[in-house]
């Protein structure tokens, strides 16, 4: 028995020839790994250089970078939320609306109904979690197609946001609250650091803990995961709930930073988030949804848009840019995968 397996293993090893082809010297190999994992970062630097050349006049590089990293964008939060669900093999089209609902609930409760900020913030997060739970129940427990469920529930959440805000953009929260999001640390707003810390925590969880491995297995084959004793239902429901919670917290922070929120703008985050998450799969852990890749991708895309705006392209370019980035990212990732998987 022992000999059989071993010998056949050796035979196979003989066939694959792990000689010059698979190991092109340790240096070349390391180079390839860096290129594959951090190609996106290189591309980013390249893009920055390109814009530096193209943009007319003397634009200060550090200022531009600060402006990009300092944007009051929920994209990192939303990207993380989407990574949560996509990593366990689910789809989600409702995260932007959940975020919008939470972000609207806070100022609506504070300004229109006179709640205190902490109470309103807690309520917003609870509301987000409830929507996440509905998603989870319909997709995981009942077993309905996740694209449809999240499309529908997203629409309901969007409607709820309009309802609670009395159909307008609410603003007028105490401006002192904006410190929560906008106070600067090392020249960048706290919002950026929250995102960075969350991403780091998630990257640790996904990469180094058993839960992360469980998520990977659930995402790759549910039945197998179940037989391996992984609580698949719990992991999947947990993904929807965590995703909704992140959206909720993101909404609260963004609303505090802005002093209010316009529910109509929530949906517009859908495309950039998808583009970031899929672009993120070509970086750091190629072929897998991963938080750090997503983080890099968010700022890669924001830089792109900002650069195009510096070149005086206006509105429409953004849509086209995100759309093309998404399709390109997925195509490249797909073709890479195909090469890897054989």
């Amino acid at each position, binding site marked *: 028995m022992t000999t059989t*397996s071993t010998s056949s293993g050796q035979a196979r090893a003989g066939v694959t020839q792990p000689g010059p082809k698979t190991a092109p010297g340790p240096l070349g190999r390391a180079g390839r790994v860096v290129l594959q994992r951090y190609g996106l970062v290189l591309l980013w630097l390249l893009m920055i250089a390109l814009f530096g050349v193209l943009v007319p006049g003397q634009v200060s590089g550090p200022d531009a970078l600060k402006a990009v990293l300092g944007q009051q964008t929920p994209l990192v939060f939303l990207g993380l939320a989407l990574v949560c669900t996509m990593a366990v093999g689910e789809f989600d089209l409702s995260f932007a609306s959940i975020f919008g609902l939470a972000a609207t609930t806070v100022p609506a409760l504070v300004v229109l109904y006179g709640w205190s900020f902490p109470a309103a913030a807690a309520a917003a997060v609870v509301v987000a979690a409830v929507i996440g739970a509905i998603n989870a129940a319909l997709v995981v427990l009942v077993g309905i197609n996740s694209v449809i469920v999240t499309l529908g529930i997203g629409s309901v959440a969007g409607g709820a946001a309009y309802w609670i805000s009395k159909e307008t953009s609410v603003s007028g929260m105490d401006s002192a609250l904006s410190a929560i999001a906008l106070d600067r640390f090392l020249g960048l707003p706290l919002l950026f650091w929250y995102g960075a810390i969350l991403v780091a925590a998630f990257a640790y969880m996904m990469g180094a803990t058993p839960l992360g491995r469980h998520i990977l297995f659930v995402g790759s084959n549910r039945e197998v995961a179940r037989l391996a004793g992984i609580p698949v239902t719990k992991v999947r429901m947990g993904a929807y709930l965590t995703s909704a919670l992140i959206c909720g917290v993101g909404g609260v922070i963004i609303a505090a930073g802005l002093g209010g929120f316009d529910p109509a703008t929530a949906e517009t985050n859908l495309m950039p988030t998808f583009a970031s998450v899929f672009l993120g799969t070509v970086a750091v852990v190629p072929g897998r949804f991963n938080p750090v890749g997503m983080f890099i991708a968010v700022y890669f895309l924001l830089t792109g848009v900002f650069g195009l705006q510096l070149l005086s392209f206006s509105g429409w370019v953004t849509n086209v840019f995100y759309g093309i980035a998404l399709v390109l990212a997925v195509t490249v990732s797909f073709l890479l995968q195909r090469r890897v998987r054989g």
Partner: protein
Amino acid sequence: MSTPRLQVRDLSKTFAGVTVLDRATMSIAPGEIHALVGQNGSGKSTLIKLISGVYRADPGGEILVDGARVGPPVHPGRLHQEGLSFVHQDLGLVADLSVRENVRVGRHSTRRFTRWIDKARDREAVRQTFEFLGLDIAPEARVATLPPSERVAVAVARALQDREAGSGVIVFDESSRAIPREALPAFYEMLRFLADQGTSVLLVSHNLKEVLAVTDRVTALRNGRVVDTGVPTADLDEAALTRLVLGREGTLDDLVTTFPAKVLPGEIALQGVAGGRVRDLTARLRRGEVVGVTGAVDSGLLDVSALLGGARAGEGRIVVDGASLDLVRARVADFLRAGVALIPQDRAGQGLALGLTVEENVTAPHLTTRGKAWWTGRRWRHAETDGVLDTFGVQPRRRDAVVATLSGGNQQKVLMGKWLLGGPRLLVLDDPTQAVDVGARAAILEATRKAAQEGTTILLCSAEVEDLAAVCDRVLVLADGVVARELAGPLTPEDILTAIFTPVAGGAA
């Protein structure tokens, strides 16, 4: 006798008012290899899924491991501690992860404070498990790079790890289907080794030879009821086992003699067919002849049917009664026009649209030839479907039954009917008896023979030497992508087996 390792008492399962498992009871002793046999749809997988907690059993009934009650309800998360482990039908490995990650999933060791996965301890645990199995597989190797026999070992290692030697039950539901023939001896050896240590093995299988050769005792299910349990295989022969499964005699007659070949005018030539592992397949097939194609896993056998049925791109040509079909350019539609039809092995994936009705499935390939572009027609569809239902005795006999609701054997019959309906000139069959019970197997092989008599040339691609011996007039044995041998009837399974595994002079082994 000591406490049984696994005991199932009075387990029932009802789906939407239909009882598919009725008070099933069985008992497995420590250190035995126990077979679970039964016709398609008799409830084997349902029983396994009740034990593994995929389905919730009807009230009443018990599952006990070493005398301790584990359910129902079964808690999937606790199964491993309770001593039950399951090997997924397709082994369930993630190919681009390492052996360590595949084995340890679900029970990673962690460092105390960081909750970080402790790779060193995991590696050690994996090494220990393999050591116990008497294997030497590098824990950090990617599963994708392992040969099939080692992949089986990885799946088994996952099921057995962290267990005291000789404890627990390991369950295989038709896993041997995912194991190539060459790796089977090693697999059986591993099972025996485990049993000798005292671990119990529960094996679901349709392969009666395998059951007789490998297992100690047998439990048989029929229509959701246990008809006999704990029968020692030593007391059984193939006929008795068949009787146990079917509830009647089910000898595989010598179909070749019962339905002798009628030689009809016409000839099909395969010329230089190549693609995948097939390098050059050249042969002449007479009309009304059943020709087998077989070989080892890496002989190219697995690619033959797909090539000849147009399912994958290839080179060479098929000449049907003088009309040539160029494989490079031909689409599936061209194959059909030339009268070449393929019945693939993967019923759910390639053979039938499970969500559609019997009639829709049966008539699909014939719509363009029998219907008009603006009207499919109605009468011919009803008539032809009824014909298929009657010829093959499909149950239930309903044109509008959704195929997914039929049992596996009946689905296979519908699949055969769908393609025989057009009266093809060449019918390429790919292992048509896979996962089919002995009764359905006989029906399918009989239909094959009958079709040949009516003027269809049959090319049966299979590794099942019994099937080949039972129906083929001739058998072509592939080795290294070319026809290495040709055996003429009358054939015995042993002859064919020998031919497959005897190296060809000058060729690669």
